[in-house]
């Protein structure tokens, strides 16, 4: 059996529905009702809390707001609007059960953020998890950063599968033994226990942001990270919570003059002094922290000149960049605005290297999308492990993949009906013109409430995680 080739599959390779459709966070694993795994018994071994609910209805707190693989791809974390983080772990492939090829099971669930109230402004601070970023693994425990609008937290997720038994001074229940009853000494031994996964908050980085945090990015030095809000970027040390450095500040002295906000930021994957941030006006600035303490002056400025023929009142809104991602190599930059995905070469600032249309059929619908606020949706974009395929989400639970080499693209749908276990995803097509073919869907039938904003790609394999409202879909490349 040939191993799955990691190098540049055509995006038209049919993707196998791994069947891991999971209601965010709360799913009864046995018997499967919200969850179904490909023809196997559900292993509840790793679930340590009884905090499982049967969700057949979508509550707003279950809406997934971020998805992220860790650096090895072994773990997949999702954050939702209710402030919870659910971590999935990939099953180890075992020889006696080859068909269970690395499925993801719930590993840990914890409440990361709670709703807060800002008494000074009389405003609620939402507990919605905006971003999760994993730290590289340095010991047996896993660390991740999760953030809501105002506070970043560092969580440690560790396993405990042994416990000490045989204490002298206290018995197994923890009660102190009466010293007069102790007649002999014994050495406590570690005995195996049921695996328990516990998450503990190790650091809380708070009170550094006036505006809403939209991004966090871990630096390649693995010591610092930055948090970005609408107008400022702060640099933190992972060990120090009471101090952060402001490295970018675009707040004008007079708020009346505010016309541009920061929408996303990321550190360079290899160069620990370089980072980029994108703006609502469609520009990307690359900054070098060696140049100055305050990186208000950019080193590079990436912006594509506006196409005058396409100009409309919505031009600026649709040019607002919702996500920016470095390629794994660090040579390219990918940005997502409302209608397109663009790949930039870091050495060329004048225009993007490649532009891919995600859903250009919406260009004529901008007014309606402005009216229902969909035009402000912030879609994310991801690279695959080899930087050859791009993926981003769209409406109607569609997501799109673009192969940079073959220039082919595919539209797939993440839906319950289409994702029976082991089912192969069928490419979808949206028809713009009058004549609609059998399997096509017309633009007017698109469901704009079903949007895929968050997706993630395994760092080395062709496994993708797609968040559709409150459901998480995990798909894998078809392997013979």
């Amino acid at each position, binding site marked *: 059996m040939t191993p799955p080739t990691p190098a540049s599959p055509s995006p038209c390779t049919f993707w196998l529905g791994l069947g891991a459709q999971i209601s965010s966070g709360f799913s009864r694993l046995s018997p499967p009702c919200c969850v179904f795994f490909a023809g196997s018994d559900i292993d509840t071994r790793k679930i340590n809390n009884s905090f499982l609910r049967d969700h057949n209805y979508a509550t707003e707190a279950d809406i997934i707001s971020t998805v992220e693989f860790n650096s090895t791809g072994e773990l997949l974390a999702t954050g939702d609007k209710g402030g919870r983080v659910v971590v999935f772990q990939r099953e180890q492939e075992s020889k006696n059960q080859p068909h269970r090829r690395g499925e993801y099971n719930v590993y840990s669930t914890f409440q990361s953020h709670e709703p807060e109230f800002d008494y000074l402004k009389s405003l609620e601070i939402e507990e919605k998890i905006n971003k999760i970023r994993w730290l590289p693994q340095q010991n047996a425990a896993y660390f991740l950063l999760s953030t809501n609008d105002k506070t970043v937290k560092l969580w440690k997720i560790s396993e405990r599968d042994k416990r000490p038994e045989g204490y002298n001074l206290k018995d197994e229940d923890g009660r102190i033994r009466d010293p007069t009853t102790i007649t002999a000494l014994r050495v406590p031994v570690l005995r195996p226990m049921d695996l328990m996964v516990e998450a503990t908050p190790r650091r809380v980085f708070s009170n550094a942001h006036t505006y809403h945090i939209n991004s966090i990015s871990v630096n390649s030095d693995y010591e610092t990270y930055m948090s970005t809000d609408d107008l400022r970027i702060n640099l933190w040390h992972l060990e120090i919570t009471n101090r952060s450095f402001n490295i970018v500040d675009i707040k004008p002295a007079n708020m009346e003059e505010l016309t541009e906000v920061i929408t996303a930021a990321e550190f360079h994957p290899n160069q620990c002094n370089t980072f980029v941030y994108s703006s609502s006006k469609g520009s990307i600035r690359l900054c070098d922290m060696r140049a100055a303490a305050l990186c208000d002056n950019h080193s590079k400025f990436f912006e594509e000149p506006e196409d005058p023929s396409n100009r409309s009142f919505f031009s600026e*809104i649709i040019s607002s960049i919702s996500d920016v991602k470095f390629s794994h190599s660090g040579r390219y930059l990918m940005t997502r605005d409302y209608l397109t995905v663009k790949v930039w070469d870091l050495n060329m600032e004048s225009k993007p290297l490649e532009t891919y249309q995600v859903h250009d059929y919406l260009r004529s619908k*901008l*007014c309606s999308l*402005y009216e229902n606020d969909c035009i402000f949706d912030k879609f994310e974009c991801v690279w695959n492990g080899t930087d050859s395929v791009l993926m981003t989400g769209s409406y109607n639970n569609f997501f799109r993949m673009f192969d940079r080499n073959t220039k082919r693209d595919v539209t797939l749908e993440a839906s319950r009906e289409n994702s029976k276990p082991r089912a192969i995803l069928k490419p979808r097509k949206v028809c713009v013109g009058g004549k609609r073919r059998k399997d096509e869907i017309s633009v007017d039938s698109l469901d704009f409430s079903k949007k895929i904003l968050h997706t993630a790609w395994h760092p080395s394999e062709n496994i993708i995680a797609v968040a559709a409202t409150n459901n998480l879909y995990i798909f894998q490349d078809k392997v013979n």
Partner: protein
Amino acid sequence: MKPWPAVCPSNCSVRPLAPSPAQLAAWLQSQHTELSTFTHCNLAPSGRGAAPLIQHPASKHAYVAHHQRTEVTRVLGCHSCCRIDMFSKGTKRKFSDDGDEISDESLAGAQVSSSYSLQRQSLLDMSLIKLQLCHMLVEPNLCRSVLIANTVRQIQEEMTHDGTWQVVTETFCGGSQSPSERLVATEVLCRSREQDAEPKLFSVLSYEGCREEEVVTDETLCSVSVSDTASDVCLSESARHCWERDEFVEVDRDDEACESSRLGPGDDDDDDDNDDDEVDEEEESSRVDPKTMGQVFGTFEIKNSAPGPDSALEELFSDVDASYYDLDTMLTGIQSAPKMGPYDLLDSLAPSHGPPSIGSPSNCRSDLNELDHIMEIIVGS
């Protein structure tokens, strides 16, 4: 059904062309029939629907109103727009010398450009409503607000170039002053989110160099009016702090001063009816309004100035953005607020309330006296 305040391009009326968001929303709620209030604009008839012929009281022009869905063309970069049937197309019929003839040639020629300007206008109104509508408990999204504000600014700039803006502003200042350089959309950005409680003197600064009368679009708006000289004094950077802190005092006095002249024709009933509602709304909204309560020194919405002995207290707690958990509540709240122009709306969005909106010219003098009086108090304290 109350008509939009409308301004006649030939200067036969003093009402504004653009309905204020408050009026828009109120009209939205009341609008269930096919007939609409009219907008006085030079639009070609669509040919759809029966239209009543409404005689403008002050001019020889007759206005025909259609109530239908606007269709946004590619000019605006979009296709099918606004499913809300709230945008009306008005047709101005020029009376010929005979009196009742419709001039088809003039209408046909203006069809394309007028439909664009109608659509642009509706986009402007929609944007203003979006800025107004927000979740009370959670801070609104700054990125979204900035983008909408930029869109509004863009439309206004274009309207300025077109001269359409000029028409509106000229009506109020008699064409003697140039329209403000700083467009009104900037005001919305002064809205909340300022944890450091920077006092922002939002609106009047934007209108440096032009009389505040230019900005007001509705006579019925009762708000603080500040003359140019006063604005020079009060709106300077240095005076920001003291201005803001004491503004509720100042506004209160000004409200009383302009109260008598506040109510324009046709709006008396509305205000009277809604006073009770307004008080209740204010009480409720005082708890949850993020914008006004954000400021330590008790910002408030000047536009909500209500008559009566409790106006000072109401000023402190009033807010047009009262508890808008859903559209209905919002519309009710807006309806209960005094009428105001769209620019006043934006003014009111700012957390720091310098004197935002403008009363009619006749109010300025009395307000100026009040202002002087209050400045004495401020400086004296």
